[in-house]
């Protein structure tokens, strides 16, 4: 008996099935294999997308199934783009996105670099650092609301200890100027380890021989860092930024638990606002238009970013 795995599989095909597929072209067989995937993709991705696009031009409300649905053209889009409150939620999202990414990249990379140095207890520290990201966002949000409590919260007491301020004199989640930072701090605390792990993978993928060659060329540590470490870790770092950017653009659970979008709408991110429009106010047509605008924004930004990432990889 000899032959490849394919021969084995061919021999094992029941004669009834073999007769049925006999005469089918390779292309037809390929279609048979991919058809279920295509069908699922159409059913759960493409059709809902097309349906959402259609609804975005109507006044449909999902909680009034018997009400007449009218075609209202681009009115929903005009309303959204002309609504100052929605631009405020966009600003809040941009603030959250920008600062979480900056802090997570800086701290994550620093931690990865430190962990990458060989020292005793290295594995233990890695485990401790990655613990926050293993927790549920709802749990994290909940216990940080206690940490931020002006009267009993540990956070306020630590700040008070360091600055001498009265711990009850400020409220991280109740103050308009502090609340946007409160959510940035918690997200950074929770997700910096993720960025750290990706950076660590990047750092460990750099062959020691490159550093040894640089040493031979008498390159300083600083120069090695900028000409070897950073360029070689950059694709990993950019990937981490892409993942965290997409995740934070749709951030919902953590912020809802922490601030509920308040005070006012200071921390109302677009996903929170969209959920309120779609499933609390039940303005389905309006929220469909809102979702399409967000989709186009994310898709556009992500496409540009992925192109940049590929260029960096090709270097």
């Amino acid at each position, binding site marked *: 008996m000899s032959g490849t795995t394919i021969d084995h599989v061919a021999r094992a095909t029941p004669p009834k099935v073999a007769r049925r597929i006999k005469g089918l072209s390779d292309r037809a067989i390929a279609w048979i294999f991919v058809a279920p995937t295509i069908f699922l993709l159409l059913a759960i991705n493409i059709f809902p997308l097309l349906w959402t696009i259609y609804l975005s031009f109507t*006044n449909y409300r*999902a*909680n*009034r*199934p*018997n009400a007449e649905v009218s075609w209202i053209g681009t009115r929903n889009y005009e309303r959204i783009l002309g609504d100052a*409150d929605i631009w405020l939620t966009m600003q809040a999202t941009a603030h959250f996105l920008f600062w979480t990414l900056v802090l997570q990249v800086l701290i994550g990379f620093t931690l990865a670099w430190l962990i990458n140095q060989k020292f005793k207890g290295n594995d233990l520290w890695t485990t401790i650092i990655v613990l926050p990201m293993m927790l549920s966002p709802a749990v994290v949000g909940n216990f940080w609301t206690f940490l*931020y*409590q*002006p*009267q009993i*919260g540990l956070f306020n007491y630590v700040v008070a200890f360091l600055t001498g301020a009265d711990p*009850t*004199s400020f*409220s991280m*989640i*109740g*103050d*308009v100027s502090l609340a946007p930072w409160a959510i940035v701090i918690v997200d950074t605390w929770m997700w910096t380890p993720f960025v750290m792990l990706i950076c660590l993978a990047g750092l460990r993928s750099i062959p020691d021989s490159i550093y040894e060659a640089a040493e031979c060329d008498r390159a300083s540590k600083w120069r090695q860092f900028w000409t070897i470490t950073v360029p070689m870790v950059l694709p990993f770092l950019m990937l981490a930024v892409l993942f965290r950017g997409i995740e934070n653009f749709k951030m919902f659970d953590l912020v*809802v638990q922490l*601030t*509920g*979008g*308040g*005070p*006012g*709408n*200071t921390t109302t991110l677009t996903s929170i606002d969209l959920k*309120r429009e779609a*499933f*609390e*106010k*039940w*303005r389905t047509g309006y929220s469909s238009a809102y979702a399409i605008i967000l989709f186009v924004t994310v898709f556009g930004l992500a496409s540009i970013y992925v192109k940049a990432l590929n260029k960096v990889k090709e270097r």
Partner: protein
Amino acid sequence: MKKAHLFAAAMLTAVSAMPAHDARADDLTLCWAAWDPANALVELSKDFEAKTGHKMSFEFVPWPNFADRMLNELNSGGKLCDLMIGDSQWIGLGAEAGHYVKLNPFFEKEGISMDDFIPATVTGYAEWPKGTPNYWALPAYADVVGWTYRKDWFSKPELQAEFKEKYGRDLAPPQTLEELKDIATFFQGREIDGKTVYGAAIYTERGSEGITMGVTNALYNYGFKYENPDKPYDLQGYVNSKGAVAGLEFYKALYDCCTPPGSSDWYMSEDIDAYKSGQVALQMNFAFIWPGVNADPNVGGDKSGYFANPAGPDGHFAQLGGQGISVVSYSDHQDAALEYIKWFAQPEIQAKWTAMGGASAMRSVVEAPDFPDKTPFNKAFLESMAIVKDFWAEPSYASLLLSMQDRVHKYVIAGEGTAQEALDGLVEDWTEVFEDDGKL
């Protein structure tokens, strides 16, 4: 032969011991919020189970998620709930979207009269359209926003003397909202029994309905009206009247001067916690909490007192809470659900309901001569129920509510803009909702 007789006798005994309706016993599910009264209803419903043979199940959802969860259930035509104790504001949607069964024929057949219930609860919990005899629920739980205060602190001689010197009157439950603010200011940051305490715990929650349920107690009493009484949905000059602006400014001033630090997103449970832990002198909350406060080992008994929402310069109202019980039109057990309502509407069951920790809206219960003195809070409850006013109950109530939450929270808590701008914005939002609904 003897054995056969014995067997027959045993069977007869067993059959006669079975509930009368066992042959068509149903499993009924009642949906409500997860709170103390719901536990009392579970106990009360055992009587219904024993009398009818139907089995009761309960689906209770915490208040912050109650509307979301239950309205999703209704909107999707779900069969989870046979009976729904839905919030008063849902009645318009329940009626117009066909979620609730219209109860008029049933009430007529069973001789259940709405005249037997407190009129405000009938309007608030059962009628749609408002002011017409079309009933979609039976008033189930009467509730209203009122105030709790630390009677033991108020009675401290040194505090009484200091208060009198400062304000020229006794430290006693306030008659007006301005007096209430004086008291809250007086207690704010004060040291009592070695602890720093604060003035008042008020509703500030943003996510669901909290701040609206709180601010309306000031707005109504300063002259806010939902619409032109002569022209429905005409909002300009009523929602954003001078009085309404003053009411909103009052609520912000109360929040700024006299609430505990970090109380920017508080609703029922946070207010209860603050009060029971001895943080505040005054607590705004629905009356449902009063039995719990009275029984509390730290602040209950003589340590606490209760009063109705104080009057303002342009009226004396309090925000209505409470719910009616409806039969869900998607239920497969509508007959059994109606049986439950028939059982629940009996005066003796209503009396038992109140005794167990519920709050009957039946007049025979609350107008009984001994009712006001039965508990320390019944008098305040009756006074409050006499001055109730409710939020919109339109099918689009959720949009109306969330707009108000946003506008009010932005001004009161975040301090953005002016009260006039907030209410002008609210008029715009509400007008847009009514235009979308084809009502304008």
